[in-house]
């Protein structure tokens, strides 16, 4: 009772949605859901915001609680442009939750989930309260498998060797290190074995850093140590762009897995065979589903990602828990912001169908992902996805990558960002 009341007060202050509470509760405790049906969404990024919004758009009688610790969300897509110096700050990549919550009657809880009980169907938040759900949507993004890199401490290493793979202060730190680096310095960028968040992201980052070096630190270079045998996405286009713009600046080395770091010495080790030193070292650690997925017991036997039903995105391990975005195994769909957006809508449609005793609907999804090669040129990959025999497949003979570097694609990329962030925040 006390915890319910505390949460109620928090909700009242959290998004101007107090007025809608009366309709959802018979007891006045706000989060007592005895009166109605509730979906709890965890994670306010590319997936979670859209799942929450579309459930409310499709069925106003379902209460939606969105749990996210941060008051603002900073987009990973386009954060490489800030690192390269094309954006003055992160303001165009930053959105809040107030309008989204008010427009759709979503109840925001700014807190961290500490436990999930799939049997009682409750989540516990760090302030101590528990929240009941009928269905739970997890869109937790990624966590780092730092245990696979000797000498890596999640609390301290990123302060010296930023990953910048979750946008925000880490992005700003990497940019600052590049600005502070002397002309002639070496940047080291280590890419983990796939699958990881945003397959073309590391190579776009290499391009953006090289662009900055070419202009401001022409004696410098960037060494890309890729644990994968080759560039994992848009390889031909990146190679073409690097040859056109950054010959002699980007040194790409495939099959070079970083297995240890020495923050003090500013060096990384490649499987104990070779030590590589750098003035700025951007280690992107290998990844797994975000922390809450582990707490909910939805991570699969690979101990990394969450297997889901390709139609509903319901976990194959826990009933009534759905996983979307980077954390889930979505067949042919890559771990991208657009995929998360698309998966969220598919998941929302089918949650609404299931909660109303209706037949589920086969998924139809899209991914579009732009990468910048220079200040004015971008490339894209696009895909259309469907479900076949329970698996998500790319529709045959569709999708693919740009034929070449393109200025018009850079224009479309900016409009894409505007649209998708508007979709998430209004």
């Amino acid at each position, binding site marked *: 009772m006390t915890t319910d009341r505390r949460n109620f007060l928090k909700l009242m202050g959290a998004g101007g949605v107090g007025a809608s509470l009366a309709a959802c509760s018979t007891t006045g405790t706000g989060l007592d859901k005895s009166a109605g049906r509730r979906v709890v969404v965890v994670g306010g990024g590319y997936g979670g915001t859209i799942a929450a919004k579309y459930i409310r758009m499709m069925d106003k009688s379902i209460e939606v609680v969105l749990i996210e610790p941060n008051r603002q969300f900073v987009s990973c897509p386009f954060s490489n442009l800030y690192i390269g110096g094309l954006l003055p700050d992160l303001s165009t990549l930053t959105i809040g939750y107030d309008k989204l919550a008010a427009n759709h009657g979503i109840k925001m809880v700014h807190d961290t989930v500490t436990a999930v009980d799939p049997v009682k169907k409750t989540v516990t938040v760090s302030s101590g309260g528990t929240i009941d759900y009928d269905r739970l949507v997890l869109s937790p993004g990624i966590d780092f498998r730092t245990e696979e890199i000797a000498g890596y401490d999640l609390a301290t290493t990123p302060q010296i060797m930023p990953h910048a793979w979750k946008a925000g202060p880490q992005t700003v730190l990497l940019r600052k290190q590049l600005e502070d680096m002397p002309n002639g310095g070496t940047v080291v960028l280590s890419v983990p074995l796939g699958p990881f968040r945003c397959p073309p992201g590391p190579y776009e980052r290499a391009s953006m850093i090289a662009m900055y070096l070419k202009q401001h630190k022409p004696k410098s270079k960037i060494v890309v140590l890729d644990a994968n045998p080759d560039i994992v996405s848009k390889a031909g286009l990146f190679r073409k762009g690097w040859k056109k713009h950054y010959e002699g600046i980007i040194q790409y080395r495939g099959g070079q897995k970083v297995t240890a770091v020495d923050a003090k010495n500013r060096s990384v080790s490649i499987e104990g065979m070779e030590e590589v030193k750098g003035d700025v070292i951007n280690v992107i650690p290998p990844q797994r589903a975000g922390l809450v997925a582990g707490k909910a017991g939805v991570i699969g036997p690979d101990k990394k990602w969450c297997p889901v039903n390709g139609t509903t995105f319901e976990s194959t391990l826990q009933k009534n828990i759905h996983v979307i975005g980077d954390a889930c195994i979505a067949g042919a769909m890559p771990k991208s912001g657009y995929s998360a957006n698309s998966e969220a809508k598919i998941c929302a*449609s089918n949650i609404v169908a299931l909660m109303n005793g209706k037949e589920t609907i*086969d998924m139809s999804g*899209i991914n579009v992902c732009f990468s910048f090669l220079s200040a004015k040129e971008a490339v894209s990959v*696009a895909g259309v996805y*469907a479900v076949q025999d329970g698996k998500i497949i790319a529709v045959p003979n569709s999708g693919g990558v740009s034929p070449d570097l393109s200025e018009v694609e850079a224009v479309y990329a*900016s409009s894409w960002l505007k649209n*998708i962030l508007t979709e998430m925040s209004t």
Partner: protein
Amino acid sequence: MEQKRWSNQWGRWALTAGALVISAGAVAAPPSPAMLANACAGCHGTYGGSAGPAMPSLAGQSKEAIVVAMQKFKSGERPSTVMGRLAKGYTDADFAAMGAFFAGQKLHPTQQTLNPARVARGASLQEANCSRCHLEDGKEGKDDTPAMASQWLPYLEMQMALYLEGKRKMPEKMAEKVKPLSVEDLEALLHYYASVK
């Protein structure tokens, strides 16, 4: 083999035109119009109302306009970057379903800075030259003519440039009307369409 089976399934869905398909192993209904159309919103905005100046709003377009545009993207007749690649993932029945969904949405009003003198000049040019196909001040279109009202000026300018460069083919009647107009006149027309709410 796999591909064949897959396209057969789509054929069946198309034939039943959205009706529930009951067959061995079918556990879910085929993608609904909303399922298909919502996937587009990542670039074209919720319900097809675009906030990005290079992307057109799809809200309020007629079903015919959407179907024809998607067919032209798919065949390559209309130049594109990602649209052609995406259109290849869908059937005519899918295009019709998406088209019906977007036709059912309200026109999306945009807030953009426009030149009032050009808007005024464009209004009279539209009335005299374009109003037989661009109906209701561009809020509607004859047959597959797209709605122009409230589209983003940058999008309209990009498309007009493609027309003038010969990369996008003008319908014959449009070509006749456009030919005598100056670049300033065309710019005024685009300002006018962008202004209509």
